[in-house]
């Protein structure tokens, strides 16, 4: 199982991560070893087998769309790294 440095870079970009060259090599080798181990799954015939995303038999669970509790704005902002006038501060996103 081979993974190229370019693939590692693509995954880093999808993951919103910067990686040093050393990190890239380290991840290349560990991902290769994990995915090589996973090759054994091909030894199982899964033709006509349905995937299981989760194990409970119950399906969609509905409830009325009503607010359960109101959280105060200042409470919600309490953990924000930067805030002003009751809003989260983010870098400029429109010109």
């Amino acid at each position, binding site marked *: 199982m081979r993974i190229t440095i370019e693939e590692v870079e693509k995954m880093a970009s999808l993951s919103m991560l910067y990686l040093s060259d050393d990190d890239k090599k380290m991840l290349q080798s560990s991902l290769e070893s994990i995915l090589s181990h996973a090759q054994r799954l091909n030894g199982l015939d899964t033709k006509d087998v349905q995937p299981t995303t*989760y194990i409970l038999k119950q399906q969609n669970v509905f409830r009325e769309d009503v607010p359960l509790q109101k959280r105060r704005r200042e409470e919600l902002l309490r953990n924000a790294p930067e805030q002003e006038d009751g809003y989260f501060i983010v*870098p400029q996103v429109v010109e």
Partner: protein
Amino acid sequence: MKLNELTITRARNLLEKKEITSLALTEDCLKRIEEAEPKIHALVTVAKDTALEQAAGIDKKRAAGEKTGRLAGIPTIIKDCICTRDVKSTASSKMLYNYVPIYDAHVIEKLKAQDYVLVAKANMDEFAMGSSTENSGFGVTKNPWDLERVPGGSSGGSAAAVAADEAIFALGSDTGGSVRQPAGFCGVVGVKPTYGTVSRYGLMAFASSLDQIGPITKSVEDAAIVMNTISGRDERDSTSAIMQYPDYEKDMKKDVRGMKVGVPREYLEQEMSSDVRNIFEESIRQFKDMGATVETTSLPTFDYALSAYYIISSAEVSSNLARFDGIRYGYRTKEYADLKEMYKKTRSEGFGDEVKRRIMLGNYVLSSGYYDAYYLKALKVRTLIKNDFEEQFKKFDFLLSPVTPTPAFKIGEKSTPMEMYVSDLFTVPVNIAGMSAISLPAGLSDEGLPINIQVITNAFCENTMFRAAYNFEQAAGFAAKPAL
């Protein structure tokens, strides 16, 4: 006996008879924390003042003759990925180094309703990704039985704290063995409830289709008492089971005569230390002596569970951890030119190596071109593994296995991710199949390290699990404590 060494059952009894107070009990735990923490570092936050306040409040309530809850005045430690209102909850990640939840997890609401006392938050592998607590962003936890060894993980802080009697019990979370494996390494009891039994509301998500919160206690009976408190339907978790929840203490003390026990040969075919093998074989004899019939059986898909687990859980990680963006809570990088750089620098500086690896792996197996070959394949294999277990429970009341291939390993011993992942080999299949299991002490290795066994039961058959475990615990009479 020091009060902090008590079980829930015993402490509750003394509290009810007013022979001790919750304040004295809590003070003993805090004293023990001061003594043991410099050696084991099982905790990331100690809530000393509020703990003493809560304890005094409950004593007052009791003295006034008011009705008190099932866990009234019992000092408790909570894994740091479970949200506790107004008490810092970091999941041992630099990403959440200053996060103070504005709400309680469902399990915390339940514990509060039973008048528990929160004494501390426990260290863990960052976001529960790891098997040794070496991946914590805030330092390694040490095993109270041998300070050169790991306590297991990811709930290593919770297990080490209970083994060291820093509290009466703890909560952990188990995605692939994160309660049962550290319970095994620390010689305490740990439960992975059936998926859907305990609400995940307020549990920081790792792999949503596998995560379950479970108790870590000093006895099987205590674990059942905690399960009676934390289980139950919660509308805020759409995977919370809609059913009649059982009384987990019911029938626990009935004997196991005539029960059918299966021992999957695939477990025994794995490499394991001779101590683990010997103690496991003794445990089989113990169940036979108690009148159970034990038969070797086979789980043909056993060998595929670990790979399926790492693919499925990492895929869910890559999606769940996308929420950490440096905007609404937690860490934000200091300098950045634009939004994208802010995201990337925040995440690169805030996450540790193992978390990055799992996010990367998850994005890989979900990306076009690999989705079918890895993710979809793993989900289909999961169906086969689940079917395999369900077949077993047509024939057997429960399955018996070791918890880990070896007792606690040394800090720094596992040098590659694959070596570390293999320590979950015996616990992972239970999560993949959505079954219930308990890890409980069975003996000590030649080096004096605890070794647990695992009782696995069908989905929603925890009553059988507690009954088998309780009977074994009484017969085995494991009473060793770490000489910390």
